[in-house]
């Protein structure tokens, strides 16, 4: 029998209590352990979720210290290739707890039953205080308290190095401190586990000052890269369950088609296949993948659907958005940067720019189509094995679909093809269908979408347009700036299989929908030109195109994608800034500096100016030409503030007017995130965002006709190839006095487009305000 004594105390707002076990038998190997949760008591409606989740109020749900002083960390954030959970998170915890990077040997991420906090895989660094940092800070304080008691030395006389606490001539390691102990520390949390933002750790535990950082700032390697490169990683695509069947879907003919009749399966050719129908959802399962593919194609060929034509088609997209879309139902949003009165200034402008900027639908286009294994057990428990950016949100959606509670659904998360925001609201496609098929055939089913389905049945980054009115005074400064952004609802988190099957889902985007799934168009691009006295930024929202007309209620579904909403709003602003500079005969970088009041804005602009070898002069360049078969060169700049980080980018291009072909020759980007947590990883993230951003700017447009998306493969949805790569120069500005670290990677996606469009103007003297700058389109505009 163990003798147990308990005591408890307040640790920086958290409650620490401790049981001292006096062992009689085998070692009790416990780090820090279980206690009832204050959060649960206050939120009984959420209680069921925690039956299959770790209790977020417990530090050991986040950080587990083993008797050998190795440490395990857990986060609800899934890795989508940023590597942040394996690099920055370990670095942050290492510094917060005064242990070496290598002491953190295990990172558990994503799985709903093995992680505490949920949330989408975005904003990993949490503007300087991600959940894992606060959890580490609480744990560190608890360890100091324990050591103080154990060593008999006051807490303020203790020091810690490499996980060993010393004071009064004595020392003890973390491992020794937690060995044979069961510690109870309750930390405060808030939020909703299965929402897009998950739970947040609250309170203000003391955190390490920047001056004590030893691990943050180092280019430490990403551990998962080794297992991926050596084919030792377990990918979602590798999950094989006993008795698992392969499934393929037969999706409707159009985004509004309902099922008339299911095609007859040819049992002579596909004796082991089986057709499943649920509402308008049709799927085929078979023991082998090849049979499932062939059988589904055979069934699809003879399945009959109603016809539907309810979309404007790509060619009429912007006419539709301006003239037919209903922008009156969602309240108009206004920026908190709005100041002065733009009206009179615009009316009496010395010089004026009035322009409309257009932004196409773009696909997340993961290199591997979405897939999932669904396993509905006889007791009603559902397991989903997949690659997902928000597994907790997915379990909520699947529970809703099945009419059960989230504790019956467990999502296991594995590495997979990055999909850049598509599942941060819980689903990327196939997860719900795998569950529906598994339930129907009473076996685990692996649903793999084919390439065409992944382009035609997934969500996209929303199209948009923006009207700019800008007045310039006699001194060449912007006297008034007005922008109106028009964008359909940017996020639809309904699982598409459930929608087609007619099963319960959350509502389609409505004004009243929650946060990001509302039709309200929020302002997402922070204003950075504090020198302008009159500013008016407004956002106008509406339903997704076809959402109301489609008998399936699907239409063109949108979903956030790298720098969501902000890309759509930053592109018009930054291209307009270039045009305004050109109107006044000013250099585009100096013009921005002259309109800014922020030191870090100026810093990042000066850095990119120097690194790119920018020659200060107005645009267009002398002797700009928009004709001929010889390439003409130009350069442009762009600027953005996102998630605590300042970005400036210069693109140098060569455009051949006779063909419209744009080659980006050099891409220079300056990044000021405050503290650079891991220079090597940030550089690779930025290079990746740069490449994807160039791809979006010059190639990417999700094409659609009156019935649905018609981009169906890499020929009809082309992306950047290696031969298209420019020379890339990444300048990381370490700025420790900021005191925190801002986000990386995704902002780089948005910077290329306005810089390339400005470079096109610089080279040719013509402004093209519609994305993407596809060859035939550029050719036609330059010829006109």
């Amino acid at each position, binding site marked *: 029998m163990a003798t147990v004594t308990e005591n408890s105390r307040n640790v920086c707002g958290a409650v620490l209590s401790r049981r001292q076990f006096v062992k009689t038998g085998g070692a009790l190997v416990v780090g820090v352990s279980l206690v009832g949760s204050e959060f649960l008591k206050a939120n009984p409606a959420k209680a069921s979720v925690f039956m299959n989740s770790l209790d977020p109020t417990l530090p050991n749900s986040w950080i587990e210290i083993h008797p050998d002083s190795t440490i395990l960390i857990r986060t609800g954030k899934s890795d989508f290739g940023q590597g942040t959970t394996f690099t920055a998170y370990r670095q942050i915890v290492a510094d917060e707890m005064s242990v070496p990077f290598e002491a953190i040997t295990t990172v558990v991420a994503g799985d709903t039953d093995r992680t505490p906090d949920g949330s989408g895989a975005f904003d990993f660094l949490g503007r300087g205080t991600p959940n894992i940092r606060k959890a580490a800070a609480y744990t560190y304080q608890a360890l100091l308290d324990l050591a103080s008691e154990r060593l008999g030395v006051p807490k303020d006389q203790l020091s810690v190095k490499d996980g060993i606490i010393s004071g009064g001539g004595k020392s003890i390691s973390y491992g020794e401190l937690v060995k044979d102990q069961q510690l109870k520390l309750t930390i405060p949390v808030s939020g909703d586990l299965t929402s897009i933002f998950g739970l947040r750790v609250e309170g203000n535990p003391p955190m390490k000052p920047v001056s004590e950082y030893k691990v943050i700032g180092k280019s430490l390697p990403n551990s998962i890269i080794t297992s991926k490169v050596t084919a030792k990683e377990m990918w979602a695509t590798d999950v094989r369950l006993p008795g698992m069947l392969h499934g393929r879907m037969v999706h409707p003919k159009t985004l509004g088609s309902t099922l008339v009749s299911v095609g007859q399966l040819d049992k002579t050719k596909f004796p082991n296949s089986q057709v499943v129908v649920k509402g308008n959802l049709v799927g085929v399962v078979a023991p082998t993948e090849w049979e499932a593919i062939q059988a589904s194609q055979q069934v699809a060929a003879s399945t009959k659907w109603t016809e539907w034509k309810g979309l404007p088609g790509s060619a009429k997209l912007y006419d539709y958005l301006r003239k037919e879309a209903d922008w009156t139902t969602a309240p108009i949003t206004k920026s908190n940067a709005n100041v002065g009165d733009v009206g009179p200034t615009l009316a009496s402008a010395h010089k004026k720019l009035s322009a409309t900027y257009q932004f196409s639908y773009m696909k997340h286009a993961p*290199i591997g189509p979405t897939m999932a294994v669904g396993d509905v057990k006889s007791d009603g428990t559902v397991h989903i094995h997949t690659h997902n950016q928000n597994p907790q949100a997915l379990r909520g959606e699947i529970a809703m679909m099945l009419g059960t509670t989230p504790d019956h659904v467990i999502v296991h998360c594995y590495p997979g093809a990055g999909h850049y925001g598509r599942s941060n609201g819980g689903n990327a496609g196939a997860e719900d269908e795998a569950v529906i098929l598994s339930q129907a055939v009473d076996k685990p089913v692996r649903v*793999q979408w084919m390439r065409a389905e992944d382009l035609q049945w997934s969500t996209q980054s929303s199209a948009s347009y923006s009207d700019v009115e800008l007045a310039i005074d006699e001194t060449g400064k912007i006297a008034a700036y007005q922008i109106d952004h028009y964008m359909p609802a940017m996020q639809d988190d309904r699982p598409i299989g459930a929608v087609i099957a007619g099963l319960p889902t959350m509502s389609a985007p409505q004004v009243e929908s929650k946060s990001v799934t509302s039709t309200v168009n929020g302002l997402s691009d922070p204003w950075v030109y504090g020198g302008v006295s009159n500013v008016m930024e407004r956002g106008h929202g509406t339903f997704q195109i076809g959402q109301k007309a489609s008998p399936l209620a699907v239409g063109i579904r949108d979903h956030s994608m790298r720098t969501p909403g902000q890309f759509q709003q930053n592109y018009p602003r930054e291209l307009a800034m270039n045009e305004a500079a050109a109107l006044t005969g000013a250099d585009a970088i100096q013009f921005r500096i002259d309109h800014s009041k922020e030191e870090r804005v100026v810093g990042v602009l000066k850095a990119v100016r120097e690194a790119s070898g920018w020659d200060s002069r107005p645009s267009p360049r002398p002797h700009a030409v928009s004709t001929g078969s010889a390439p003409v060169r130009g350069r442009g700049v762009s600027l953005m503030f996102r998630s605590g980080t300042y970005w400036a980018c210069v693109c140098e291009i060569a455009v051949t007017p006779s063909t419209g072909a744009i080659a980006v020759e050099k891409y220079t980007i300056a990044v000021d995130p405050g503290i650079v947590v891991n220079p090597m990883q940030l550089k690779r993230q930025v290079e990746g965002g740069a*490449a994807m951003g160039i791809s979006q700017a010059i190639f990417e447009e999700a094409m659609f006709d009156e019935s649905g998306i018609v981009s169906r493969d890499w020929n009809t949805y082309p992306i950047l190839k*290696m031969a298209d790569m420019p020379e890339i120069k990444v300048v990381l500005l370490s700025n420790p006095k900021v005191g925190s670290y801002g986000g990386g990677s995704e902002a780089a996606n948005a910077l290329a487009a306005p810089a390339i469009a400005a470079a096109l103007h610089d080279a040719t003297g013509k402004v093209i305000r519609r994305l993407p700058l596809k060859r035939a389109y550029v050719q036609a505009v330059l010829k006109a």
Partner: protein
Amino acid sequence: MVKITVNGVPREVQAPGDTPLLYVLRNDLQLSGPQFGCGLAQCGACSVLIDGKEARSCVTPVSTVANKEITTLEGLPARWAKQKGLPAAEAENTLHPVQQAWIAEQTPLCGFCQNGMMIVATELLESNPNPTTTQIKAAFTTSGPSPHLCRCGSYNAIIDAVKHAAVIMAKGGK
């Protein structure tokens, strides 16, 4: 039944002869290197070496590779060890220089396409031990049935890694 040789090991598979090699490798032989990206030979995620030449396993019927030598990502270390005549003990602990470089340069982002990228890099470096940037871009863009596509945009890191691998190979693999 089809007899194929994968990473130096003869295998007999029961799959119908028209089954694309990709599904045989992934499902019958449980290899995880080649990935399903498009099924159309448009992206390269499924690439393998067939008799030393890069091929798209998603459109290659398994019957057409009978008695041919197939190398997947899993087989790169052994391929290198064989080429260099490394003793067994050393071979066991030696990654292919391409894999070493991919780790050193921290090349993958999501990594889903990197199987094909490393296969092409191996093919390139076996015929051209010191490629220029232009030659690297050509190898990954125009040499095969389609460009090798990376959606995360790791192309710059791939170029760095191919050059790094060339240096490692020139030094004999260390």
